[in-house]
């Protein structure tokens, strides 16, 4: 199967595919094949207007469909709807308006069914040359506006884009059709153009040999010249006026200018009506001697305009051109050129778009000259001039006429274009007009020769900047220099690529004559040595900044490098002809090999060792450690139990013995002896305050310690007044007396009195010391104790003969000492305390505040020994001794063992640290 290459990605695709299977780009253009180029002299290629249906906007399609219903309705007289020219105005036909030409594109509809449906009628009429007879029908369907324009060839048809506003308003109102008939409306603008053309001096600038040619004529592109040539065909003189009478002025002038060879006056007239830029266009085409130039000019025009240029002998080119033009333009081209059309016409039409291809096709046909005038009678002046350019050699005057009516900007552009006589005036079509070139066509390289300025003050810069064949590109800035060639232009954002391709095909289908004359011959040439490559041809300054920014930077592109010389140039796609372009994705090959970097971490041996160590530590953290179960029998518990057993045994067993085995100490403490002396000095039946200030926990020691003292007091007959500074003191006092002093048979209330609990701590002691009966208003059997015989004569603290405090804590004893000494008035204060507080209270003894002190079991034992009355202390002496002995031994052994263990552990720790 044959393959076709995708213009975008360049990959081969099957022939039958319409869309690339790789990049989804359209392989086959909708309108015209990109690869085809229209050359001057080529036969117009037949095209089906149905293809253009898809290109047309929706509103246009609807309009066409609506107008098809009005085919039978003749267009209103004097008004040329925008739809199109009457078919009768088509070349080769009567001037009667065609019922189907109310629509601008009605020719498309007719041409759909037409066998040759290639060039619309109106376009064929524009060309000025009568199309083939079989083409008359479709060609009859010129849009009304064009037919009117042709009819108004002699009238001043204001070009809507060139006339003054007031001139335009006269010609067309809001409700009036845009284009009025030539007879009824002659816009001032077109008259101006005519005037301008006459005054512009284009005639002097053209340098045309034929004085009938306006200077602008040499500058007119072929498509305009062809219009002028089309119109003023010799045999079409009647048609031209007729056509022009129907067409708006601006179109009629074109028709009048072109076709009539005998209307050389018409041509000037037309050109006088047309703006200068259009007049020149007409002047270009119709010169007989310019027929070679016409093809040449057309050869330079873009394809879509080139069809207009060719001379009458280029009739063979007309069919070729028409074949390439869109259908709606093909009719025009088909109408104009006769079979005898010169090859230039077909070639030109091949370059022109369809809508303009008819113009070229119309022009070159000598036998179609009747059609040309007819067409040009319909066409506006500017288009009529184009028709006049092509077909008739004797229509050279039309060119000047046309040129005289062309606007300045166009006249200048046309004037810069190579004249028909020059032949060599291979003005270069601007790139945007030259359209997409076939493969190998050097569109970017085309040098756009600016047209010679006919009227500098009137021709716009963009037109003046058009390069001409005569003038080098660098001489003057081309108005089109800012424009990017179509091949260079980025695709419009709003146009899909297929649509873009279609547009490009549409525009490339035909080039007007005047543009064909502008375009250089080598617009179809290869792009290798194009001027685009040459920086001098297209100066950077001529391009707009935004285009400049889009251009590839040569420095970067060149840095990327090209492997081969031939690979720099892009040969296909929208960037064809560009160099140093970044290739597409699939084709992209990195120019530089990426630098290889090792993934291995560069670490020193020490770092690696530390990393390994850290890793081990981390792993060790996650490793489960076995739980150390504690033994049921611990050394601590064993030791405690052993000590407990020993103490219990050794302390308890001596209690069972009848006789103590512990020897009695021969050394008696002085404080104990002093106590004995104090008690011995008490008078008999003296009131003694006995204070119980101990808890039940140490009651055993205190009972054993205080028993000999109380016994001695009882032996002395003292009246005991018991006061407790603890809540349980009262009960403990009773227990004490009952357990230790039962032999004395002391009775409560008689021998002793228990006043109870004295609250308040130090404050209570102080209060009792200051006012005993006020602090302790006790009642005994309903009687105030202070009235009892036990407390007879006791009102103050100093009334007590002695105060004995039994305490197991230092604070209580201190409080009694501190609070009562000043109130005792020399009365002795005796203390019977636990062995643990004896050292703390000894200063008081040494200070003389305490007269006697009995401390612990040892003191009680000594007091019993001195008093000669054994008691609890005597019985507890063996237990005490054994307890002390075990404690001493345990302490010694334990401390030694602990010391040794500590020393060994330290030694081991030091060894480990070392």
């Amino acid at each position, binding site marked *: 199967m044959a393959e076709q290459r995708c213009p975008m990605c360049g990959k081969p695709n099957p022939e039958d595919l319409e869309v690339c299977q790789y990049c989804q780009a359209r392989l086959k253009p909708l309108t015209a094949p990109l690869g085809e180029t229209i050359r001057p002299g080529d036969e117009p290629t037949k095209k089906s207007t149905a293809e253009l249906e898809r290109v047309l906007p929706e509103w246009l399609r609807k309009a066409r469909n609506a107008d098809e219903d009005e085919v039978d309705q003749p267009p209103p007289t004097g008004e040329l709807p925008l739809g199109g020219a009457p078919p009768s105005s088509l070349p080769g036909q009567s001037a009667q308006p065609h019922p189907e030409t109310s629509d601008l594109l009605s020719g498309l509809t007719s041409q759909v069914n037409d066998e040759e449906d290639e060039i619309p009628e109106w376009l064929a009429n524009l060309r000025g040359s009568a199309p083939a007879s079989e083409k008359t029908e479709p060609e009859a369907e010129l849009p009304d506006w064009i037919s009117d324009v042709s009819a108004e060839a002699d009238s001043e048809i204001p070009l809507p884009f060139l006339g003054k506003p007031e001139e335009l308003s006269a010609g067309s109102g809001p409700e009036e059709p845009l284009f009025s008939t030539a007879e009824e409306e002659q816009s001032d603008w077109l008259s101006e153009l005519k005037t301008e053309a006459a005054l512009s001096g284009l005639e002097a600038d053209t340098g045309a040999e034929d004085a009938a040619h306006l200077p602008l004529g040499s500058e007119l592109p072929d498509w305009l010249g062809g219009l002028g040539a089309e119109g003023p065909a010799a045999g079409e003189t009647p048609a031209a006026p007729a056509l022009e009478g129907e067409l708006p002025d601006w179109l009629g002038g074109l028709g009048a200018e072109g076709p009539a060879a005998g209307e050389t006056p018409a041509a000037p007239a037309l050109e006088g009506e047309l703006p200068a830029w259009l007049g020149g266009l007409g002047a270009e085409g119709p010169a007989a001697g310019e027929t070679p130039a016409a093809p040449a000019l057309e050869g330079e025009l873009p394809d879509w305009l080139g069809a207009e240029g060719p001379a009458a002998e280029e009739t063979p080119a007309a069919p070729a051109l028409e074949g390439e033009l869109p259908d709606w333009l093909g009719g025009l081209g088909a109408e104009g050129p006769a079979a005898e059309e010169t090859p230039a016409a077909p070639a030109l039409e091949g370059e022109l778009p369809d809508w303009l291809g008819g113009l070229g096709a119309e022009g070159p046909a000598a036998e179609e000259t009747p059609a040309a005038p007819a067409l040009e009678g319909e066409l506006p002046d500017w288009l009529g001039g184009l028709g006049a350019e092509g077909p008739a050699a004797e229509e050279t005057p039309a060119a000047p006429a046309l040129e005289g009516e062309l606007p300045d900007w166009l006249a200048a552009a046309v004037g810069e274009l190579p004249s028909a006589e020059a032949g060599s005036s291979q003005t270069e079509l601007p790139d945007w007009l030259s359209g997409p070139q076939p493969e190998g066509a050097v569109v970017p390289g085309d040098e756009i020769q600016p047209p010679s300025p006919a009227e500098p003050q009137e021709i716009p810069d963009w037109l003046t900047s058009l390069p001409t064949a005569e003038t080098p590109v660098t001489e003057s800035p081309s108005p089109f220099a800012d424009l990017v060639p179509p091949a260079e232009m980025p695709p419009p954002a709003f146009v899909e690529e297929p649509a873009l391709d279609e547009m490009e095909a549409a525009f490339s289908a035909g080039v007007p004559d005047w543009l064909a004359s502008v375009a250089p011959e080598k617009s179809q040439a290869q792009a290798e040595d194009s001027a685009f490559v040459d920086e001098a041809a297209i100066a950077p300054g001529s391009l707009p900044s935004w285009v400049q920014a889009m251009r590839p930077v040569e420095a970067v592109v060149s840095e990327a490098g090209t492997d081969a010389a031939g690979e720099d140039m892009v040969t296909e796609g929208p960037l064809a002809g560009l160099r140093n372009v970044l290739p597409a994705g699939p084709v992209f090959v990195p120019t530089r090999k990426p630098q290889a970097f090792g993934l291995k971490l560069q670490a020193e041996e020490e770092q690696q060792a530390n990393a390994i160590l850290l890793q081990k530590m981390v792993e060790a953290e996650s490793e489960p450690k076995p739980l150390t179960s504690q033994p049921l029998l611990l050394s601590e518990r064993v030791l405690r139990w052993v000590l407990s057993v020993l103490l219990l045994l050794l302390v308890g067993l001596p209690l069972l013995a009848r006789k103590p085995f512990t020897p009695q100490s021969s050394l008696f403490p002085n404080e104990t002896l002093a106590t004995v002396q104090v008690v011995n000095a008490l008078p008999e039946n003296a009131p003694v305050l006995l204070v119980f200030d101990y808890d039940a926990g140490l*009651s055993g020691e205190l009972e054993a310690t205080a028993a000999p003292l109380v016994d001695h007091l009882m032996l002395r007959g003292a009246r005991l007044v018991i006061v407790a500074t603890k809540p349980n003191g009262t*009960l403990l006092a009773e227990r004490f007396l009952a357990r230790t002093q039962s032999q004395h048979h002391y009775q409560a209330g008689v021998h002793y009195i228990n006043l109870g609990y004295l609250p*308040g701590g130090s404050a209570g002691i102080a209060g009792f010391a200051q006012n005993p009966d006020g602090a302790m208003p006790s009642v005994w059997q309903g009687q105030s104790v202070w009235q009892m015989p036990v407390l007879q004569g006791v009102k103050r603290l100093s009334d007590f003969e002695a105060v004995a405090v039994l305490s197991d804590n230092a604070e209580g004893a201190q409080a009694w000492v501190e609070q009562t000494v000043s109130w005792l008035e020399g009365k002795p204060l005796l203390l019977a305390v636990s062995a643990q507080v004896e050292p703390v209270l*000894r*200063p008081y003894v040494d200070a003389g505040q305490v007269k006697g002190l009995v401390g612990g079991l040892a003191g009680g034992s000594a007091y019993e020994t001195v008093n000669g009355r054994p008691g609890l202390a005597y019985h507890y002496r063996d237990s005490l001794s054994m307890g*002390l*002995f075990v404690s001493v031994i345990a*302490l010694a*052994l334990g401390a030694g063992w*602990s010391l040794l263990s500590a020393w060994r552990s330290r030694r081991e720790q030091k060894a480990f640290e070392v």
Partner: protein
Amino acid sequence: MKRLLATAFAIAFGLIVVLGYFIPLPLFAYLRQEIILWSIILAAFGVLVGVANLLAVHLEKIRRRQSGYIYSLLLVLSLVITAAFGFLLGPQNPGLRQAVEAVIVPVEASLMAILTITLLYACIRLFRRRLDVMTVIFLATAWLILLGTAPLPFAEIGVLNYLLRPWLIHVPAVAGARGLLIGIALGTLLTGLRILLGADRPYGGK
């Protein structure tokens, strides 16, 4: 306002009591005595408030069925019964005395006995925990004192019993005790002054 009144009362009464000691005026003496007697009464009520608070706490614990509320129940019952017997029988009642002798004295005495074992064991393991000069001195002193407190079962160590122990008690111990007592006295004095000046407010407030 409340804090201000409390502070004012504390300072006023404190000054009166102090002045009563330094100014031998009968008024101040009388006021002093009265204020002290009032403190005795307040202290007595404080004991009752303490008992009531103890009762309330344990009753709450019993009500919420917290952990160990059984012991709280036993405590409350014991308190109520003992109080009832005391109110009814009097403190000299032999039955009530039996409750004291059979419960209170053995319980507290047992705690003291356990304390003895614990202290002895702690002294034995003292070197394992802390080995320094002070620890050695401490243990040595305790050993000597224990050894010289009473005659040993088999014999009496005269040096210990008649020289070393008496010297340790009468000299180092008394010296330390005196220093301790002086410090306590000074602290007590300073605390009293701070309260009298309003610097310390143990009764609440800033």
